[in-house]
């Protein structure tokens, strides 16, 4: 619209940095506006709200650091934080190992790779709500498919959905069902491993494990690093599957303390109890935790991730 008019006028003055700048500004303006309204302002306002008591109906009242002090003494915050860390510590390595194993298998699947790849990726398309429903059904202690399967081997499976010590492992198992994207990313990385290097290692007498450990893994380490970072951030914020399966208006039969993730408790504080100030303090804390964890991973990556030349 106005961009067209402006652009027409400028066409003869092409190359003039100022007008280029104006056109560029018009193109990026949607993001600039969106960033200001839906990112910068909300982050700053969250920090402000974390210093107040606010229930949406009455104006926020300034309370200083009270919310943060309360956070430290809130057993449920401690519980939710611990649940989230325990889940993340189990889910991220489990997902990585499984997706790497599946990617290695796919690499050797030959012409049928496409079929298997589809099978592994398909669950990733499932809406997380439906994954939560499936968790309740498949991991049901009495009649669930998983325990029936375990029964074939004489193992009597635990009550995944009601026994507090098995709830998080159950959530991890369910999360393994949706590793499809990581499989695809790792497979793409594996296909970049130069065949000459593997041949050279073979000639030197390196076995399968040695080749994997000393040739393949270092070369695909950027992809592994990417997956670990993305999965960690996602796990620290995981909400939908656990909320669907263990929380909400109808839940009267399940004990759900073991599934209380940080994001779930934050959501409850904000939108069920309308403790917006307190929930904002929780959000600021989550933000800091994610930053610290990511920073640690960046530092570790300097030591363990090998970037070969030619990467942009």
């Amino acid at each position: 619209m106005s961009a067209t008019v402006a652009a027409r006028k400028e066409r003869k003055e092409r190359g003039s940095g100022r007008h280029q700048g104006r056109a560029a500004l018009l193109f990026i303006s949607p993001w600039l506006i969106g960033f200001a309204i839906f990112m910068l302002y909300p982050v700053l306002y969250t920090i402000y709200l974390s210093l107040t008591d606010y229930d949406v109906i009455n104006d926020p009242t300034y309370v200083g650091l009270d919310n943060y002090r309360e956070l430290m003494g809130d057993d449920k915050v401690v519980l939710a934080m611990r649940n989230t860390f325990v889940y993340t510590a189990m889910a991220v390595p489990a997902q990585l190992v499984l997706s790497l194993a599946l990617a290695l298998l796919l690499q050797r699947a030959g012409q049928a790779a496409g079929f298997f790849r589809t099978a592994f990726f398909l669950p990733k398309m499932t809406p997380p709500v439906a994954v939560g429903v499936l968790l309740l059904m498949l991991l049901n202690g009495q009649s669930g498919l998983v325990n029936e399967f375990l029964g074939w081997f004489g193992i009597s499976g635990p009550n995944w959905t009601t026994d507090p010590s098995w709830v998080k492992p159950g959530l991890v198992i369910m999360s393994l069902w949706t590793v499809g994207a990581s499989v695809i990313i790792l497979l793409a990385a594996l296909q970049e491993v130069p065949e000459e290097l593997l041949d050279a290692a073979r000639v030197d007498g390196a076995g399968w494990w040695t080749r994997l450990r000393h040739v393949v893994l270092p070369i695909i380490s950027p992809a592994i690093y990417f997956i670990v970072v993305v999965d960690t951030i996602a796990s620290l914020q995981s909400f939908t599957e656990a909320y669907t399966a263990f929380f909400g208006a109808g839940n009267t039969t399940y004990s759900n303390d073991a599934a209380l993730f940080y994001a779930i408790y934050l959501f409850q504080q904000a939108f069920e109890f309308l403790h917006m100030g307190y929930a904002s303090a929780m959000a600021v804390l989550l933000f800091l935790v994610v930053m610290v964890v990511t920073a640690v991973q960046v530092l570790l990556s300097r030591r363990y991730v090998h970037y070969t030349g030619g990467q942009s």
Partner: protein
Amino acid sequence: MSTLHRAEEADRADPAGADVLPAPAPPRPLDAHRPRRVWSRVLVGAALIAATIAFVYPFVWLVSASLKPRSDVFDNRLIPETLTFDNYVEVWNAAPMAAWLFNTAFVTVMATVTVTISSALVAWGFARYRFRGRNFLFGLVLASMMIPGAATMIPTYLIWDSLGMVGTLTPLWAGNVFGTAFYIFLLRQFFLGLPTELFDAAEMDGAGHWKVFWHIALPLTRPALVVVALFEFQAAWTDLMRGLIYLRDREDFTVPRGLKSMLDQFGFGGEWHWELVVTASVITTLPMILVFFIGQKQIIQGVSSTGTKG
């Protein structure tokens, strides 16, 4: 077993392809261990098939359960003892499923169309032009991807509340008119891969900035636009959180929000009609499966490029 056989052939064909390289291929020590290779292929094949069953069976279970009467839902039989389509009729009476599907379709289409166009605009601005502050601003785009949703969730709700939009479908998609950092990043990468000479030549011929973008750059970007559209289609269709925050009346729900309410009511809520929950789960999931089979190639390519370029 035919797949195994074919896998074997392909395995053999692959090194042959590598041998085309100018470097003389060393004699392959593999052939010395023939029996071991065969065994390892059998193991790989068995593992692939086992994994496939594990990944696909939950879908089969779900569809099968939705075709069983109430009393048989948990019987774990592959083929229903009593086959019935009643659940698919009943679920329409038990919940405003048609309204939910319509709402979700509306939100999904709006979210997809707006985010694809706006992200392309912004990506083009970053890819085509040099301007002061560009690197800083693009750094902000990347940094904004790191910010947890929780850090912006409450003020965002308050914004929509002050606009009187809580309880409507608008907050579920309207933020997309400003583009999304991840898609801006993906599309910028794609634009940077296009030859600049093409756009310079068009400008030389008198095409304006907008024309170059809309008539030349955008059509060339079609593959990447399709990837973005498919990603967003899935994200919008499957989102529960925003439905929980913004939707109040049952008739206004999206399908994921509706499924959650059905689980609360008919599942562990006490009414104990799991057959309806299962059937609603199939209805919620099916569109995504269709989308995957239509856009499979683009989705897989899109996903693998996020890893290598990120």
